[in-house]
């Protein structure tokens, strides 16, 4: 079975090295932010307890 390929891949936009580097840096920054958020929400759950989302409206 052949792999599913996007027909535009061959004719689409080819990134320059600078664009690839910028994209890689942005991806790393997003990964770091997501990792920090995981830690943050974990700590908040410890602080506030399991009922963190239970609140009177």
């Amino acid at each position, binding site marked *: 079975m052949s792999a599913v390929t996007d027909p535009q891949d061959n004719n689409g*936009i080819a*990134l*320059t090295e*600078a*664009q690839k580097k*910028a*994209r890689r*840096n*942005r991806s*790393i*920054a997003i990964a770091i932010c997501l990792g920090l958020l995981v830690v*943050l929400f974990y*700590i*908040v759950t410890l*602080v*506030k307890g399991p009922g*963190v*989302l239970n*609140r*009177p*409206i």
Partner: protein
Amino acid sequence: MSMQSQTARLTSPLSSGNAGARQGSLKGSPNDPSLASPRDYFELLKPRVMSLVIFTALVGMVVAPGHIHPVIGGIALLFIAIGAGAAGALNMWYEADLDAVMSRTMKRPIPDGRILPGEVLGFALFLAVFAVVAMGLLVNVLSAALLAFTIFFYAVVYSMWLKRWTPQNIVIGGAAGALPPVIGWAAVTNAISLEPIVMFLIIFIWTPPHFWALALLRTEEYARAGVPMLPVVAGERETRRQILLYSIAMAPVGALPYLLGYTSALYGVVSIAGGLWFVMSAFRLRNAPAGDATVKAARKLFGFSILYLGVLFAVMLADRLLGLSVGQMPWYVTWHVTW
């Protein structure tokens, strides 16, 4: 002639309604793959403005009665900072065409072509929604609602409506910059009372003389960009008069926390002396001869205004941390907003 009609006579090289950023007339094409770096995104958050927001919100939190877990307090500050950053990014997205013609702002990421307007809009909206929702879930709903209102007020009411429409733009728009200590207070108490409103008033009434002093130094640029700042519309003389009037009104407001009896004599001395110095600086600016002397006096007032506000809030903070303040005012009135 009214200021409004004078505003209408302003000529601008820019099209009305800010078509620049959104229609891609700035550097960079919306079809080009992005070259934006994480630093460009960070710059969109206006870090210097953000630091002032964090500081005033921290003061609001520290002087509030009651207790907040340090972790939750830190998280509240983080989300306030992210919300302020989102508002700053929305402002940069909408004002990219103005930024491109002003020397102070032309190196910002959008006019400099380092980031695309669409990227900025998506980034800013995501941060705004995230900050408000997380604040509501992890801190309390009142502070989240205040944060949402602040972002809306700065991005929509000030940036999109007031700024290009009226010379009173920064008078009314100053409310957005004055709200962070109220949000900080609400994060701790889940309520709003007189003290945070006084803090709000201090920043609110401080904003016009602060920004008009800056506007006096940038009058030509604002005129070229078509922004109806007071010196552009009403002239230098009237602006100097308004700065003096607002400074006279601001000095007693700055001393209100002492006059109402809930800060120490240290705050009283600092706020009264600072207020008098502020009024004297405004008076010197009012009487300065046109030309270099006015520029010098405006620059001095602008610099002092930053120092004045920073010191007032720092003393408020020290007051509470060192236990100098005498507590809440005797006729303390609180109206709790329960959510």
